[in-house]
């Protein structure tokens, strides 16, 4: 793949609910291996942006390119194929409650990618091992901790061989001890070169690993830049104010 074609390019993405714009003219691109962090206050449009990117929420306007090919969401087959290449991690995991950890990872391999049963199973086991859940594959979501659930959901997304992962505050529903185990998995993914766009308030994590930070408020991308700049010497007053509070709360680095 050519160096200058971004893995994901988003142009003019907008969404309004009734009169209220929740996402206005969002544009950015992510290159292979990059980790970009979305920060900003709740209700600022981070979640809407992430969900518009794989059309879980239908944007009112905007265009998206994956590896340089424009996505046409009206063509169902293309949309389904595109979503397979865009891994999505949710704040509250959204595991399938009636399936074991193994079956949660296996189901899309069998039913969407149509892999033979043995192959799907082998791949699912491999992905669960990768996130450190080898001993828990037979457990149901209700028998797992929050951190384990989130790791299953990461394994489930990885099994589809995504080109890019979207993570929507993956640690917000977890207590501090569990946050660490999930962040460790995400960190490893980043080090392995996975392209990621992640909404989070984990400033220390962002400082360590992010290539770029995107600050969003009121549905707009207010400022974009290297994490250290955004956190300490942002051009925009509002960005500085918000980041100052995050730093007070979570500390600047680990």
């Amino acid at each position, binding site marked *: 793949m050519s160096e200058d074609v971004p893995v994901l390019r988003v142009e003019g993405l907008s969404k309004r609910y009734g009169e209220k714009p929740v996402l206005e003219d969002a544009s950015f691109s992510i290159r292979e291996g990059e980790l970009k962090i979305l920060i900003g206050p709740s209700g600022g449009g981070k979640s809407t942006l992430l*969900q518009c990117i*794989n059309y*879980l929420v239908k944007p009112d306007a905007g265009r998206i390119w994956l590896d340089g090919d424009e996505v046409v969401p009206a063509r*169902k087959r293309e949309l*389904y*194929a595109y*979503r*397979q290449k*865009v*891994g*999505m991690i*949710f704040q*509250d*995991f*959204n*595991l*399938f*409650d*009636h399936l074991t950890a193994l079956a949660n990872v296996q*189901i*899309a391999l069998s*039913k*969407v990618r149509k892999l033979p049963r043995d192959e799907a199973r082998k791949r699912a086991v491999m992905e669960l091992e990768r996130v450190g859940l080898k001993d828990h594959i037979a*457990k*149901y*979501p*209700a*028998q797992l901790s929050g951190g384990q659930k989130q790791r299953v*959901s990461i394994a*489930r*997304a990885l099994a*589809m061989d995504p080109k890019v992962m979207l993570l929507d505050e993956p640690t917000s529903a977890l207590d501090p001890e569990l946050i660490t185990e999930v962040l460790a998995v995400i960190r490893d993914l980043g080090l392995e070169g996975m392209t990621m766009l992640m909404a989070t308030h984990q400033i220390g994590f962002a400082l360590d690993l992010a290539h770029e930070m995107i600050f969003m408020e009121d549905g707009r991308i207010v400022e974009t830049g290297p994490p250290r700049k955004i956190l300490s010497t942002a051009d925009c007053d509002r960005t500085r104010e918000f980041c100052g509070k995050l730093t007070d709360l979570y500390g600047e680095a680990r």
Partner: protein
Amino acid sequence: MPASIDAILDALPYLLQGSLVTIGVVLGAMGLGLLIGVSLALGQVYGPRPLGVPIGLYIWFFRGVPLLVLLFLFYFGLFSLMGLNLSAFAVAAIVLGLISAAYQSQIFRGAILSLPEGQLKAARALGMSDTRAIVSVVLPQALRLSIPGWSNEYSIVLKDSAVAYALGVAEVMARAHFVATRTYEHLPLYVAAGMIFLILTFLGTRGLRMLEDKVRIPGYSR
């Protein structure tokens, strides 16, 4: 008293044959109700908005018109109008099934709506079509949640099936009535008929309870 017991014992084989007919009508009705009920519920929850109108009319009609009226309407009217020559047994099963579908649809609709919406989003995010997500993610969970309501519906359909007697279906009630009018042993025969219904209710609800336990998702408390 011994005479009454004799009357019951004499009629018992005949009544028990009738219970097979009752079971046949109820199984047919519950099965048909399941198929149509799930379709109606899926249509109501996931279908395009205009589809809600005919579904609403269906439910309104079959919940609103009395069973006996519907049995006569279909047996003496509608089916022959359509050129169908169906047995009283088949008509009873179909009409009870059409009515049960209206009630069952609301059991399934409630169960579907009680599932966390995020699971459907997760299924879509993995590249599943809506149909695939419904089959693989929504229905397996919604049907589990529907078992208690479905068990309730079973006991109602079982009792309603006695009305099929009015079409001349040789089920438990029809047979009890037939023997009673011939032997004048009214009390013992209707006691026997009632007991057969009680036993069938017990067996059915008990069986469904066992099914509920068997398919319970591990990790959830009772």
